[in-house]
């Protein structure tokens, strides 16, 4: 299969007489492509850019600062996925707050946060709702469960985001030319492939939904190059074993019940209209900002001096062009969010790119 894909890729790439820039949107794709050394198999004129699909990386600094302030409140327990711990804000990170005594529970599943609220009835348990369409239904479930159980000590500090608006924002900005998107596999499991139709039709940019094995990604890249060579811009599905056209309708219904679209702030991309999810008024009791009003305050969120995470998330520059990369900013001492997450572009380059011919 690999040989065949490689030959096809060469065949189609030869028919294009310009450099192609394809963006893998999802952080897991970024990491998988690097781990397998996929870039070294690409023809000279095919380049991979890493996009804004690492949920931790695109979480705005002021969100982290709000959470740090929250940890100082009496009887508050923060429940979170582990990768949020080391993300730096201006007030430090959750890891530092925990070392100073903050009550922080790392969970594998949002279900564990609800269980914690039941167990520790004297605590206000606040779950950090960070992630895209894949994670949002699981957090929606916790709100529904808390409402059914009438749990008065559970809430979600919601910063969920939705992918396609960010992809459109990148195309609109025209800061960097993107010839095609390797679309996120598990976002698409939930949403279905229709989600990207407007990108293919209105922006004339090919989209291929890809699975997570290196061969899946390699094949998706080949499908994109073929679309470019044939002058097509369509949504194609390489990951048919998981992604169905209509997606997971139970998950979509749950999302629609609990959340509604809102404008959202992305690290590096700014505020993108309609790219976030907020908790509907019906479930306002479970929105952390209604329990802790200071979470609604606007905070300044300057990026660390010299840090180019914003441009890296937009595909405008690569980590080697950042003055901090590998010097002041390393996985052991991350300054920017893209170095923190193990799905971040800088973490991927740090770990793999130095050894590979082509980045």
């Amino acid at each position, binding site marked *: *299969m*690999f040989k065949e894909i490689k030959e096809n890729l060469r065949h189609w790439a030869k028919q294009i007489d310009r450099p192609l820039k394809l963006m893998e949107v*999802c*952080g*897991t794709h970024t990491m998988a492509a690097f781990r397998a050394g996929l870039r070294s198999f690409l023809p000279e004129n095919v380049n991979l850019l890493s996009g804004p699909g*690492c*949920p931790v990386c695109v979480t705005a600094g002021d969100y982290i600062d709000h959470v740090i302030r929250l940890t100082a409140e009496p009887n508050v327990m923060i429940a979170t*996925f582990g*990768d949020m711990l080391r993300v730096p804000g201006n007030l430090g990170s959750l890891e530092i707050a925990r070392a100073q005594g903050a009550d922080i529970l790392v969970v*594998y*599943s*949002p*279900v*564990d946060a609800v269980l914690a609220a039941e167990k520790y009835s004297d605590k206000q348990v606040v779950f950090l709702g960070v*992630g895209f369409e*894949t*994670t949002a*239904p*699981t957090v929606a*479930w916790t709100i529904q469960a808390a409402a059914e159980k009438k749990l008065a000590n559970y809430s979600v500090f919601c910063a969920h985001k939705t992918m396609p608006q960010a992809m459109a924002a990148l195309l609109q900005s025209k800061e960097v030319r993107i010839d095609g998107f390797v679309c*996120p*596999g*598990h976002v698409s*499991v*939930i949403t279905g492939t229709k989600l990207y139709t407007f990108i293919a039709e209105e922006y004339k940019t090919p989209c291929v939904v890809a*699975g*997570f*094995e*290196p*061969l*899946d990604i390699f094949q998706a890249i080949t499908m994109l190059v073929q679309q470019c060579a044939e002058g097509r811009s369509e949504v194609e599905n390489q990951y*048919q*074993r*998981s992604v*169905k056209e209509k997606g*997971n309708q*139970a*998950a979509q219904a*749950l999302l629609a019940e609990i959340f509604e679209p809102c404008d959202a702030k992305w690290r590096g991309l700014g505020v993108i209209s309609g790219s976030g999810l907020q908790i509907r008024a019906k479930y306002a009791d479970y929105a952390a900002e209604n329990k802790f009003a200071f979470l609604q305050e606007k905070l300044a969120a300057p990026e660390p001096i010299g840090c180019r995470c914003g441009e890296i998330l937009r595909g405008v520059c690569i980590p080697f062009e950042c003055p901090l990369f590998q010097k002041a900013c390393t996985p052991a001492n991350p300054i920017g969010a893209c170095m923190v997450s193990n*799905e971040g572009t800088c973490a991927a380059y740090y770990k793999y790119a130095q050894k590979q011919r082509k980045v």
Partner: protein
Amino acid sequence: MCLAIPVQIVELEGTQAVVDMHGVRRPVQVNLLQNPEVGDYVLVHAGFAIQKWSEADVAEYHAIMEEMNAMDEKAE
């Protein structure tokens, strides 16, 4: 964040299932699936099954993994 391996449902009670992940048993919510059954292969994200895989889907996954393992051995 996205773990894309198929795991099998080995126990089921209401919307709560237990899956077998390479010998490790984990509780999983299956309320996002239609008609889950013991023996189904599912995709799990953050403690929730988000999609069922058919036998053919699982076979495709194993074919891909076999080819990649063969490439690894060749490289070594």
